[in-house]
């Protein structure tokens, strides 16, 4: 944790249960510091995607407290959720690009949702396309892009709105090791600009490549904390 940095995400005794089944996530208590880089690891079925869904506000917990940006999001009125989601960038494992929109339009979408004037959209979108190395594929539809290219469009879409936290679910799961390294480089570059990064991955080889990253490990829905930011109020 960077000295003096505030916690951007705070979980306290959070549990998540789908329907009447067993808890998918149990007793999660941790904090993510603003501007830090985290990996979320664990075997398949450990609950990584469910944890991410709680953070990008696709799901409310069954119990416990979640604070984001200093506010309780468990009881957050539904009308305020869009405003919070605009502060969170999400890279989905399956990209979730809109298939009938070009790469350019997919990347421009968060700006348009946020009410940015059309005249102010072109420059940042082209900068973002260049940043992810897709300037020449701006008007290609997702179906004509490779897996790695789609992943980069998804990342560009997630970060163009300058989110305070970027949540990525297995972002390297569909790309070769070389592309995985390039994607991590993009995340690090974004992290240097101050964005908190949380990358869920089962690829442990990625972790040493980001020297300052901290790791959260999920095992059967419970957190086996690595070098985590201490909870707010603790001496650590």
């Amino acid at each position, binding site marked *: 944790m960077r000295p003096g940095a505030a916690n951007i995400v705070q979980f306290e005794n959070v549990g998540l249960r789908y329907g009447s089944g067993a808890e998918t996530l149990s007793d999660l208590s941790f904090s993510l510091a603003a501007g830090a880089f985290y990996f979320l690891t664990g075997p398949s079925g450990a609950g990584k995607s469910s944890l991410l869904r709680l953070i*990008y*506000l*696709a*799901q*409310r917990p069954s119990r416990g407290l979640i604070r984001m940006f200093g506010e309780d999001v468990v009881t957050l009125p*539904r*009308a305020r*959720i*869009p*405003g*919070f*989601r*605009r502060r969170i960038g*999400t890279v*989905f494992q399956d990209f*979730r*690009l*809109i298939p*009938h*929109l070009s790469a350019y*339009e997919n990347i*421009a*979408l*968060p700006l*348009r*949702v*946020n*009410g*940015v*004037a*059309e005249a102010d959209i072109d420059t940042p979108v082209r900068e973002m396309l260049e940043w992810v190395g897709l300037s020449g594929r701006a008007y290609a539809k997702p179906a004509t892009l490779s897996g790695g290219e789609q992943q980069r469009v998804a990342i560009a*879409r997630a970060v163009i*709105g300058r989110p305070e936290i970027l949540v990525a679910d297995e972002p390297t799961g569909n790309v070769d090791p070389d592309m995985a390294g390039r994607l991590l480089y993009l995340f690090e570059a974004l992290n240097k600009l101050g964005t908190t990064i949380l990358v869920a991955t089962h690829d442990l080889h990625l972790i040493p490549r980001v020297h300052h990253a901290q790791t959260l490990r999920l095992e059967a829905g419970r957190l086996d904390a690595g070098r985590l930011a201490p909870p707010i109020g603790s001496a650590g």
Partner: protein
Amino acid sequence: MALFGRGSGNWLTSAAGRRLLPEGWLSGPMPWVIAIMMFLMVLAAAAGLALGFAARGLDNHMSSQITIQVVDANRPRRDAAADRIVSAAAALPGIASVRRVSDREIAELLRPWLGAGLAENDLPVPAMIDVAFLPGSRGSLAAAEAAVRAITPRARVDAHAQWLAPLAGLIASLRWLAGVLVLLMAAAAAFTVVLAARSALNTHQATIEVMHHLGSSDAQIAQLFQRRIATDALFGGLIGLLLASLVIFAVGDRIARVGSDLIGSVELPAAAWGILAMLPLAGTLLATVAARLTIIMALRRRL
């Protein structure tokens, strides 16, 4: 919550916004269903409006006209009584006009039944006097009857309201029926829009989910759909109005050819056409509101 969105840079209504929902305009059955409903709605509304104007005219006639008949086989005595009645009626308050119907007019009225060769003394016919009251002077009817009775017991006063009342009742019932039909059509159109909006939500489920994750509000998402549905409804409404107008013109032509004063009184004045022309706009507004409410209520069930 504004009906047409707020603070989103209007991109939702721009070409970029329209590309989010890739289906072509007027691609589904909804515009044509709306066209059929609007066709029927305009016909029902036209019938209701025409009957309404006819009823108004009838009511004015009923409340302001009486006919006095002097039934006396003695022609000189009949004529003398008729003249006295004309004088007495003209002196009453609230009378607009008093006119004795000429013998020639009476012969014309009887010609279809008695033939053209009716000689004056062949058949004793009553003397007839038409009395019209000023608007709002309905109370003068009793005074007129009393005055007539005082002159001759052989006079009979026929208030037009007596024999037109059943017709007025029928027209009122038909007007209610037309109104109910318009409301039923409007409700059916609204339900059609609800079904179309739900279908569109299911079709574009993945896009909506992404939009939500990117921070779109329910209002923004609803605006994407309501604009398309409003366009479909306006198109369907205008087609329905056009077809119904052709039918109304054709029926009006047929009515004119009948040549009956009574049937001919069922006509559509310019003001009624103005009301009919507003129906597609009202239908579009109804469709837009129905679509918006449907979509927002459906989205509220999600996080």
